[in-house]
């Protein structure tokens, strides 16, 4: 395997044996980016010099036998809504086009401490609002398997970067599927941890009660490796959970005994693409062949997930994005009459349509007189959705579902149909609403040669179980070994 298609673990092994240096790996990634990112558009900025410098530093440390972090010398790409000190963090918005944070996000600190090589900042839908990166103010990321197709979103840049060979690892954020859906579209592993498993400090907020940072990787082992370095309590994020972080990689190869896999019969049969359905059923057969028990489950309130999500997420977003007003930082309109006009002009000129749409939705839902009917009701339904999962996990260990109703759509296909775009979040939003971890793993290819993912869900803080279950499937299949040409 070439450097740019190898997994992080393979590269680490080669660096440790002295077969290859971090500088060579980093250079290979940078070369691949400069060769092909013109058509993929995964990156909004590439920190070439800093990356090479860090790679050489790690090489020196390794040579000198000094202690090294867990990701020593591995290039990692960051979604451009994760603050990194001194590096522009744009959120793919004109509003923050020139914003340079004076501080590192918690996970950036963790990655630096793990000696990772931060290679660049990846494209996303503006402020992570969208499912295709078409809402980026700067560029649309294409699917490395076929550039006519969307990479998915909102973490499309990170998914595409890992898929295209630009970086073995990347970080994204998932508010309603923004890691799992692009991972599925691009044929890589994408993990959304339990809400609170990874600190949100330094992640530019979209919907605070749903946002969670998670990794993209080329296989489950790599996902486990990077999750272990970023997970854990951070006192700067009071919603981060104070629970021990297991050594995910050490138990990964142990199959789960007497595994009970929950599946949803007849779930939204109508909208489900035949090839996706087939891939999901095939995946269940794989588990069956491994001796797992298949248990049909019901999630009675699952049908309300999208509606609930599109009340809660925009409500929080309308509040979180109110700070971008042109006063303290970010874009300020060049012409305005007075203070109110400055706010209106700055926000009007710098936010894209989807962001405005969601701000308006959320502002409406929180307005006096509507709060009870919308926001408060959505919180109650959210509680019911959470209960559904608690109930389901009484009788199963994991739940297997499709990630998205269809494989990747073409670029431009859904741009004028936001509702269809929202409805495609049907399988992913439930994990955010209920706070549970979910993973998307490669589980098939469509006739059009586009990847199809399988989603596995587990109870809160059961990432270890989730990863082991995913690894059981991965060992039996070779979807994760496929690379776009």
């Amino acid at each position, binding site marked *: 395997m070439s450097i740019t298609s190898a997994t992080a673990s393979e590269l680490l092994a080669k660096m440790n044996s002295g077969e290859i240096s971090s500088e060579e790996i980093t250079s290979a990634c940078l070369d691949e980016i400069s060769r092909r990112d013109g058509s993929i558009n995964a990156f909004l900025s590439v920190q070439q010099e800093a990356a090479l410098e860090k790679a050489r530093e790690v090489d020196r440390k390794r040579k000198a036998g000094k202690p090294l972090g867990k990701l020593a010398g591995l290039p990692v790409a960051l979604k451009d809504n994760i603050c990194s000190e001194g590096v522009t963090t744009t959120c793919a918005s004109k509003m923050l086009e020139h914003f340079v944070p004076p501080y590192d996000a918690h996970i950036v600190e963790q990655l630096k401490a793990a000696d990772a090589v931060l290679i660049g900042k990846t494209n996303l839908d503006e402020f992570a609002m969208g499912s295709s990166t078409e809402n980026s103010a700067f560029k649309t990321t294409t699917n490395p398997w076929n550039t006519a197709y969307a990479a998915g979103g909102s973490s499309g840049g990170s998914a595409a970067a890992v898929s295209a060979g630009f970086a073995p690892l990347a970080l994204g954020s998932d508010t309603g599927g923004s890691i799992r859906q692009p991972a599925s579209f691009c044929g890589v592993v994408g993990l959304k941890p339990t809400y609170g498993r990874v600190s949100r400090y330094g992640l530019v907020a979209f919907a605070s009660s749903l946002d969670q940072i998670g990794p993209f990787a080329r296989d489950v082992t790599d996902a486990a490796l990077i999750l272990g370095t970023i997970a854990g309590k951070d006192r700067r994020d009071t919603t981060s959970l104070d629970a021990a972080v297991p050594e995910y990689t050490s138990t990964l190869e142990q199959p789960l005994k007497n595994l009970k896999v929950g599946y949803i019969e007849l779930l939204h049969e109508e909208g489900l693409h035949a090839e996706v359905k087939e891939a999901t059923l095939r995946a269940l057969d794989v588990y069956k062949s491994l001796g797992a028990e298949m248990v049909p489950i019901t999630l009675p309130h699952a049908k309300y997930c999208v509606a609930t999500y599109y009340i809660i997420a925009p409500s929080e977003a309308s509040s979180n994005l109110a700070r971008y007003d042109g006063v303290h930082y970010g874009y300020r309109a060049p012409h305005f009459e007075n203070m109110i006009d400055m706010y209106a002009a700055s926000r009007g000129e710098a936010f894209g349509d989807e962001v405005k749409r969601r701000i308006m939705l959320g502002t409406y839902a*929180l307005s006096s007189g509507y709060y009870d009917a919308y926001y408060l009701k959505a919180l109650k339904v959210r509680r019911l959705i959470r209960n559904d999962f608690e109930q389901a996990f009484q009788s199963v260990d994991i739940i297997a579902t499709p990630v998205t109703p269809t494989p990747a759509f073409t670029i431009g296909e859904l741009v004028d149909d936001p509702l269809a775009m929202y409805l495609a979040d049907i399988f992913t939003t439930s994990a955010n609403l209920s706070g549970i971890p979910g993973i998307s793993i490669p589980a098939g290819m469509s006739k059009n040669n586009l990847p199809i993912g399988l989603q596995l869900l587990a109870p809160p803080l059961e990432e270890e179980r989730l990863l082991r279950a995913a690894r059981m499937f991965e060992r039996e299949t070779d979807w994760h070994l496929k690379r776009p040409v």
Partner: protein
Amino acid sequence: MDYTVIIGLEVHVQLQTRTKLFCGCSTKFNPDHPNTQTCPVCLGLPGALPVLNREAFHLGMKTGLAINCEIPAFTKWDRKQYYYPDLPKAYQISQYDLPMSQNGWLEIELDPETREKKKIGIIRAHLEEDAGKNSHDESGRGQDSKVDLNRCGTPLIEIVSEPDLRSAQEARTYLEELKLLLTYIDVSDCNMQEGSLRCDANVNLHVHQANGETVPTPIVEIKNLNSFRGVEQAIEYEVQRQWKHWQETGLSLKDVPKETRGWDADRGVTLEQRGKEDAADYRYFPDPDLAPVTVTDAERERVSQELCERPADRRARFEESYQLSVYDAAVIIDQGLAVADYFETVAESCGNGKQAANWVTQDVLRELNERGLDISKFPIQPDVLAALLQKVNAEEITIKSGRTVFQELLNYPEGVPGIEQIQNIIEDKGLALVSDTGELDSIVQAVVDKNEKAVADFQSGKQAALGALIGQVMREIKGADPKAVRELFIAKMS
């Protein structure tokens, strides 16, 4: 026709924590160095998250308990959303429907003569973060406005009273008592000049009509009250204005929405304010970045144990235990906790409350004023003053000598004088009371011998002559006991 004045106060008090409510920045009052006490959290930078300062919550609980509030077991944080340049997140983290304390009261004394008291209800007291400070170019040259965020994120507790206050004077008394209480329990310095205590007043009238009906006039919220005098004057002005307005228009509460007016202290008027308050929809919702706070019975108990005696209770106790006059007790209590503690130490150890009160309210307070000192910096420690008073009590020195020793102690050149200095000064200055008639006798005899005229005057009935004679002896022996001297003279001259 007449009317009743209805007033409720909303008081914002800055809690004296070292750091801000949701970040580690200093809360120091520092207007000369704008935007130096800031960080990503209080600047509202993208990605920054709030972390509750437990000390602020603790002081909030202390405040709530001191004003007799319930402290619910569960309280949460809400975002109050509005746009203003001094509010960088465009929302203020506050508490909406589940405040951290509620349903309390504060007792005030309406009249020191009659001792009539009244309980003012407190609806709620909740925590919130302060905004920054805007400053605008007032030169008229149209310079940019400036924003200082040093204050942004400072913990405030907002105390909302019931509309139980019936006059401007009552409102002032309530505010004074509240300030005294909060400084006593050490949760705030309540410095009004620096904005640590700010007050808004809701005022209207209940007009009693001839037919026995009562009609409420529109409620006006007066903002920007930053002195006790201001509170009193603004309310007085507003009552007159509303009465006049009522008589002119007859408009009542239900005809007019709540109005916001600002107090212009220079012109002595309230002026209509337009701004963010008008018909605002703050779109409150629970802050998803902050976990709700739960309070256990044990915590509540622990904090109430920390509360010291409330000033009102202490005032009553001083009157009772030390036989102080209403006036003296009030003077001492109103000076704050440290002075009251000082007084009490002196009174306890000298065994004479009245004497202690005299010395503290006259000599000590005078010196503090003249020297611009805080009691904590006062050179005479309470045990030293008590020892001095004991000597006066025991008639080891005269009161006059006592004052001399007091002055000497104040001017003691080497740090804080100890009790032993009292004796040293008495000896150095020869202030020891001499009532030994043997020692005094010869001096008195000598004075009698030298002052034939005065002696004759006395003997002819001029009492005043005796004073001059005694004075001569006192000049000779500083510590002479005037009573003993007097008796000796009378014996010799009769």
